[in-house]
């Protein structure tokens, strides 16, 4: 699968790269060589400097010092426009598409084919787009508005946009986070065909199995410096993890004590919430972690949102603790003891500009209020309890949340909802964008919560996560619950088979 490095000149050569942001040394004297026609993976925890490095290579930002050469050309003062002209294409982790414009126009943004009068050649553009998009996903119409596509399809458009350049170096930043296994396979095929054409790929990922499946070389970053750069054929997953975190870390794949028969906290019968949820039935007991697995678009998040009251429930029955849940909005659900940690913590759950205490008590101000006034000392009491019990790493309770790492932000978000004393906690993607070390801590925290008798409903696209956490796995497909597997008996293959073929 992986091949040894061809002894050719590197297409990209970086020496002594330094980049500082206010208060943070993002990159400290970093060296990197990327060879022609190879796939070079970059791994490292959040904050290791991967994205900063990619942004410098793609000309989004410039380094403070250091030498960058691309094909012998100095690119230390690159701009995005020049990067495109040189053949450096980057697929950003965040969306860089305009939802109201067509697929074709997004792919050729600012580079639409034009007539001598400057007007756009719409048909040529649609045809060219079709030929690129077809490599990735056959059913995307170049004339469709991007807003009408699913998130995974939008990501494919994003990748198509990078491919539309006359590429010599493709930079992919966590490309598979939003993709299903099939789409991932197709993307890998495209990357391999680029490699065959002599085009190099820089591949940032959290998923180490992808490194072994796709990459020729791997470079590990920690705290802005390279801690290892090697041929993939010569290294092991354990070694990568050790270099990433600086210590050996056993990734606990299974820790599923058999659920004791307990009080049923949630029972959902034939719930329908158009357009995404057709028919969902499931139950969650006290002390149990139930994971919802399924492909993108299967309606997992939408089911949770319907339970929480964010989405309308069209029909079906939701029983919480023996009484029907009839509320029509989230505040009714919170009153009944339901809490939901949403998928996108920055957009839908945290106040990044406020301090730790304010965030922890944000959903339970009642508990920190004395005679209608929010009491600082009461709030701090609540917050410090969670900071110590969840091992949230923060210098003090006044720390602005935006300065904490992703994993610690996620813990604060959990604390915020736990402070509402829920009976049922819904967690959507508990570790998205969280590094390996913090992941394990969040798993431990979720397990501990279940141990205290809380009922947990967890949605995750990451199957290793599902297998590591779940007492029971509920599989959804096209808006329906199509199966249920006991957590300790489940295999990845079994879940995938149910999710993909019903």
């Amino acid at each position, binding site marked *: 699968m992986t091949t040894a490095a061809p002894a050719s000149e590197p297409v990209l050569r970086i020496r002594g790269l330094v980049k500082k942001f206010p208060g943070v040394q993002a990159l400290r004297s970093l060296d990197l060589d990327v060879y022609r026609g190879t796939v070079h993976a970059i791994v490292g925890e959040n904050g290791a400097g991967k994205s900063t490095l990619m942004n410098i290579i793609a000309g989004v930002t410039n380094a403070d010092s250091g030498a960058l050469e691309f094909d012998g050309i100095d690119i230390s003062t690159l701009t995005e426009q020049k*990067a495109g002209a040189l053949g450096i294409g980057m697929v950003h982790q965040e969306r860089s*598409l305009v939802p109201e414009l067509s697929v074709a126009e997004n792919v050729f943004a*600012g580079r639409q084919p034009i007539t001598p009068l400057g007007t*756009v050649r719409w048909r040529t553009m649609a045809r060219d787009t079709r030929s690129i998009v077809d490599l990735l996903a056959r059913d995307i119409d170049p004339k469709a508005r991007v807003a009408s596509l699913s998130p995974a399809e939008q990501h494919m458009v994003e990748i198509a946009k990078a491919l539309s350049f006359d590429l010599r170096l493709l930079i992919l930043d966590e490309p598979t986070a939003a993709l299903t296994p099939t*789409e991932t396979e197709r993307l890998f095929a495209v990357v391999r065909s680029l490699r065959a054409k002599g085009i190099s790929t820089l591949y940032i990922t959290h998923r180490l199995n992808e490194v072994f499946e796709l990459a020729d070389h791997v470079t590990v970053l920690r705290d802005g410096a390279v801690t290892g750069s090697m041929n993939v054929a010569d290294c092991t997953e354990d070694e990568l993890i050790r270099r990433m975190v600086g210590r050996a870390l056993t990734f606990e794949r299974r820790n599923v004590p058999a659920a004791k028969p307990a009080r049923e906290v949630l029972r959902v019968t034939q719930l329908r919430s158009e357009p995404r949820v057709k028919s969902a039935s499931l139950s969650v007991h006290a002390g149990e972690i139930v994971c919802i697995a399924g492909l993108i678009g299967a*309606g997992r998040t939408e089911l949770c949102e319907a339970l929480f009251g964010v989405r309308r429930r069209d029909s079906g029955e939701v029983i919480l603790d023996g009484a029907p849940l009839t509320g029509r909005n989230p505040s009714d659900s919170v009153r009944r003891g339901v809490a939901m940690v949403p998928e996108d913590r920055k957009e839908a759950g945290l106040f990044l500009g406020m301090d730790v205490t304010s965030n922890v008590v944000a959903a339970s101000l009642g508990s920190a209020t004395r005679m209608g006034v929010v009491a600082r000392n009461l709030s701090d009491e609540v917050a410090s309890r969670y900071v110590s019990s969840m091992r949230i790493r923060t210098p003090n309770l006044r720390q602005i949340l935006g300065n904490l790492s992703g994993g610690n932000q996620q813990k604060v978000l959990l604390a915020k909802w736990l402070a509402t004393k829920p009976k049922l906690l819904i967690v959507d993607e508990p570790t998205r964008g969280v590094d390996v070390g913090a992941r394990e801590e969040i798993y431990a925290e979720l397990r501990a919560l279940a141990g205290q008798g809380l009922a947990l409903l967890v949605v995750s696209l990451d199957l290793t996560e599902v297998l590591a956490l779940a007492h029971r796995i509920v599989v959804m497909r*096209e808006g329906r619950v199509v199966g249920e597997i006991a957590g300790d008996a489940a295999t990845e293959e079994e879940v995938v088979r149910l999710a993909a073929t019903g």
Partner: protein
Amino acid sequence: MQPRDDIESSVNPDTDAAGAPVMTPSEALGPVANDAAPWTPYRVARRVVATVVRSRPLLLVVLTFVLVIYMSSRFPTQFSTWSNTKAVLLDSSVGAILVIGMMILMIGGTFDLSIGGILVFTSIITGTMIANHGWPVPLAILLGLAGGAGCGLVNGILVTRIKINALIATLAMAGVYTGIAQLVDSSGVTPISDQFSKMGNALILGLQSPVWIAGVLIAVMAVAVSQTRFFRQYYFVGGSERAARLSGIPATRLIVLAFTMMGVLAALAGIVNSSRLNAATVSAGGGLELATITAAVLGGASLAGGEGTVIGGVLGVVFISLVNNSLIILGVDVFWQQIVIGLVLIFAVSFDRLRQTRLGSSG
């Protein structure tokens, strides 16, 4: 599970797994073009209604049409005459010149509240140079246009480089420009000159010159904004400035340029207006920003940016002129004009909100 899915999955499980069971907004709303189902009158009607409701400019055409038919049938001798049509077109021409610039700004995600100030400032400079300093008309006009470009450039730099919110920056500069105009000539310039006045009152093929100037500009800019790569960059900047920058589109430079174009167009509108009246007055700029933004929003622009067309904005201007004209013919108190236009704007925008919530958050 539906039978169709079974067939697909048995034929090709790959496609099935990838083909996410996602319902697009258009499917949720009603029939789509490639639907295999037969066309019935009901389906056609639903589709037509859905299309009209979805497109604000189209809704505007329907409203304009309804207004014209109503007024023509009730006041055939006053409303549906050539002279009244000419009056409406003339009334629209200054607004149309302004709305082109505003539309480009709004597509790019920003706006300019100082257009009234720029218009007054430049027309008074032009007027005073001709009337009081004996400048030749073309030179004075060039000075006015250059002044407009300068004002626009200042606005653009304040908004993009110094990063002052467009609302604050252009509101403040509106006061500055108007104030300078009053310093130059507090009472306004009237009359300016016969030669200058002739330009704005010339008849060509039965229509006044401002209508022609606006017409040519509209024709050129409508094509340019919708079809040329250069102007389509504004849809990216307004749709998502981050996406634009990541696509290598020079957002800052484009926005500065759009403010500069707005300044030139405001100056042109002011010169056309003062030439028609043979007078440059401070009061000429009152309420122009509200009327122009209203027309642009009616014509499909949104304050969030990334949407709108020149034709839509022009239709908005014509609609507002027609409403004003109809109110005059109906003999309604002139103050009703503001009320009606304000309500129309609120109606159009709330209709939009309603439409978006109906379509759901996936759109």
